């Protein structure tokens, strides 16, 4: 690792680009593979969402029967969470983290490639249920006994279990890689508290994946044994306990929520300072809040199970309420970062501001659900669906698009068209709110989730119709995005190495970066080395930051 020998013949070395992409161990190429693969799954799961919303537009069964509908929402949830949001954020992390740390690559490049290639394999297996008599249809939570061999006989559920075990293993290996990279590969001068916030969120996320995912793996293996080898873990007729699965699933599942949201928070915490031209307010507080969320996330799982009547309500209600505190601190930090800034409305900035305003709604509804008496009413209704989409979609997916617009020039050297980007943002933003805000009143008035058909109540009909319109608007908003990506790749504006006047090390190399990232690095004396470099002649600034040039440099 310490020395790199350049073989003179290297220039003559060439292979077809197909082989190159299939066998690459370069973290940047793997990152792009992750992102492209995730977006393909995003579109597939999005089509399933449209199937769901079409069916729910008006009461009665018009397009699909119950079995198809149940498969659709099961696969929609599974694919969106496990094969879109988590891997797409891993993809950005893969691309950006080594660059941000000033490292030449990830710690284990070949394991990195393995953890990517397990994803399309696992995702393919999960989808393969459709080819063998129907995909899994028990909801993405797969509660037994519904998911055991008596009530779900098809092979779809087994494929779901195998596929998701592979995907889980991939993310465990990926998180080993991230943690090792962050601890062992930082450039000289890059101390832990000079790391970009995005790297911090990836570190905490990777730790959550490392500790939570294996528990789900154990649970899925147990369910597989129940289904195929006559086991009785979750089968009440032979002495097993179905609620045990819920404990195992949510012990993983709640950290999973933070696995999904923390890196998106990190993205936003990188973008807001750049386009406010100010540092993130309260860097250390933000780091501690991230760590706090990570720690607390292991003690709140049973708030998904208040209605089972088998959990310690006060304890879990208290811990769940407490996790609102670090989240609130982050919200204040973002607000203070905007305060008295110099704000430019680029597309990434719009998505970042969209993130904090939409995530806020998800946060408030989350605090409401943390109260057991209110949860007895709202649990398993559309209110929960609204809440989780404001967190996953209004939060994470907005973060994903912010990251896409922000780092696209880094990956390609070309900036996505800003005008099309803004068209995308506004259709997306309005469509999102039309699609998911109505789910709040639907849930509050008692519409359960996961039903293929509902009573012809005029209020329910109205809100469902609005929601369906919104869902199709989101789908429409993807069109300008896709046109933008294709047109920019063919003939986009070349914007040089650092088009955004950004802060962190990934902008201190060329765009796109060379295979081993850096020939040289600027000095790293704060969490914004590129900012310091840009303003290094600004003596006033340097003095204010306590970064007066050292003797050798003057």
């Amino acid at each position: 690792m310490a020395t790199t020998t350049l073989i003179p013949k290297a220039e003559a070395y060439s292979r077809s680009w197909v082989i190159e992409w299939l066998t690459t161990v370069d973290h940047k190429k793997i990152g792009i593979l992750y992102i492209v693969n995730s977006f393909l799954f995003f579109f597939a799961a999005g089509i399933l969402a449209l199937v769901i919303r079409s069916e729910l537009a008006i009461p009665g069964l018009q397009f699909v029967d119950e079995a198809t509908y149940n498969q659709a929402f099961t696969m929609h949830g599974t694919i969106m969470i496990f094969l879109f949001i988590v891997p797409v954020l891993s993809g950005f992390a893969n691309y950006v983290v080594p660059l941000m740390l000033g490292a030449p690559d990830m710690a284990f490049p070949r394991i990195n490639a393995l953890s990517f290639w397990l994803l399309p394999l696992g995702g393919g297996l999960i989808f393969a249920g459709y080819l063998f008599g129907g995909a899994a249809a028990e909801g993405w939570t797969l509660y037994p006994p519904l998911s055991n061999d008596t009530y779900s006989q098809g092979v779809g559920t087994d494929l779901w279990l195998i596929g998701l075990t592979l995907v889980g293993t991939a993310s465990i290996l990926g998180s080993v890689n991230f943690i090792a990279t962050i601890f062992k590969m930082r450039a000289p001068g890059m101390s832990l508290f000079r790391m970009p916030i995005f790297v911090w969120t990836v570190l905490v996320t990777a730790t959550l994946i490392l500790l939570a995912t294996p528990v789900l793996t154990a649970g899925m293996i147990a369910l597989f044994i129940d289904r195929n080898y006559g086991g009785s873990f979750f089968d009440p007729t032979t002495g097993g306990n179905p609620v045990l699965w819920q404990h195992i699933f949510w012990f993983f599942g709640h950290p999973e929520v933070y696995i999904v949201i923390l890196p998106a928070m990190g993205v936003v915490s990188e973008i807001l300072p750049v386009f406010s031209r100010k540092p993130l307010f309260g860097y250390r507080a933000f780091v501690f809040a991230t760590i706090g969320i990570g720690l607390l996330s292991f003690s709140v799982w049973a708030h998904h199970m208040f209605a089972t009547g088998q959990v310690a309500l006060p304890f879990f209600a208290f811990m769940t309420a407490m996790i609102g505190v670090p989240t609130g601190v982050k919200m204040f930090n973002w607000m203070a970062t905007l305060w008295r800034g110099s704000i430019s409305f680029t597309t990434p900035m719009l998505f970042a501001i969209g993130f904090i305003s939409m995530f806020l709604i998800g946060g408030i509804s989350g605090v409401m659900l943390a109260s057991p008496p209110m949860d007895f009413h709202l649990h398993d209704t559309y209110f929960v669906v609204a809440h989780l989409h404001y967190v996953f979609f209004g939060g994470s997916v907005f973060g994903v698009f912010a990251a896409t617009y922000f780092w696209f020039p880094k990956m390609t050297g070309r900036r996505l068209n800003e005008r099309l980007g803004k068209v995308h943002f506004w259709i997306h933003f309005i469509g999102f709110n039309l699609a998911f805000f109505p789910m709040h009143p639907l849930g509050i008035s008692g519409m359960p989730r996961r039903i293929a058909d509902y009573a012809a109540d005029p209020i329910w009909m109205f809100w469902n119709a609005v929601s369906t319109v919104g869902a199709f608007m989101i789908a429409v908003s993807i069109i300008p995005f896709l046109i933008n990506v294709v047109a920019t790749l063919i003939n986009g504006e070349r914007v040089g190495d650092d088009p955004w006047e950004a802060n962190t090390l990934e902008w201190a190399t060329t765009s796109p970066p060379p295979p081993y990232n850096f020939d040289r690095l600027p000095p790293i004396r704060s969490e914004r080395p590129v900012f310091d470099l840009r303003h290094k002649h600004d003596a006033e600034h340097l003095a204010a930051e306590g970064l007066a040039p050292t003797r050798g440099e003057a």
Partner: protein
Amino acid sequence: MSVEARTGVSADITPHVEIERREVGMPTPLVGMLLFIASEVMFFGGLFAAYFNARATFPGPWRPPEPAHELEILPLALPLTIILVASSFTMQFGVWAIRRGDQPALRRWTAITLLLGITFLAGQLYDYSILGFGISDGVFGTVFYTLTGFHGAHVFGGAVGLTILLARAMQGQFSARNHVAVEAVSMYWHFVDVVWIALFTTLYILK
């Protein structure tokens, strides 16, 4: 005006810091192995949680289903435990040997460890054949075979690692300075051993 000139980054990146990387502290592969073991701890944690939950909610006495006998530490379980614990020591002797640069001793100790591991696996399989109950015989059968089975699978994985280690040691690939693979496999082997001690205590002693 070019972007570089305006932002003053790429064109004006001096003073440069030469990218000079020295590895300090634990070697990266060992960090990776430790992290992987942490995830394995959580995996077995999940299985143990399932075991204790099943045991707590089980109606009736917690023992193998009739007509099978209760689990006994003799004649098989205790000797197998001793064999596995001993193999942890022999593994460590191998590590110490290569730290001194003693390649023949590494080969010897690795071979002995591998042999003990295989003996354990064989004993475990024989035990399965005489227990008199199966994985589908109620909750006890399910958790017993799942826990011991996954531990066995990990022993098998360790044995594969030891085999590769032995093959590499035969070719003299390790030295006092360069033997990170030996350290990594030994960490994993110790972990598998500790899991067995926890399993043995839970299944055979805390009845």
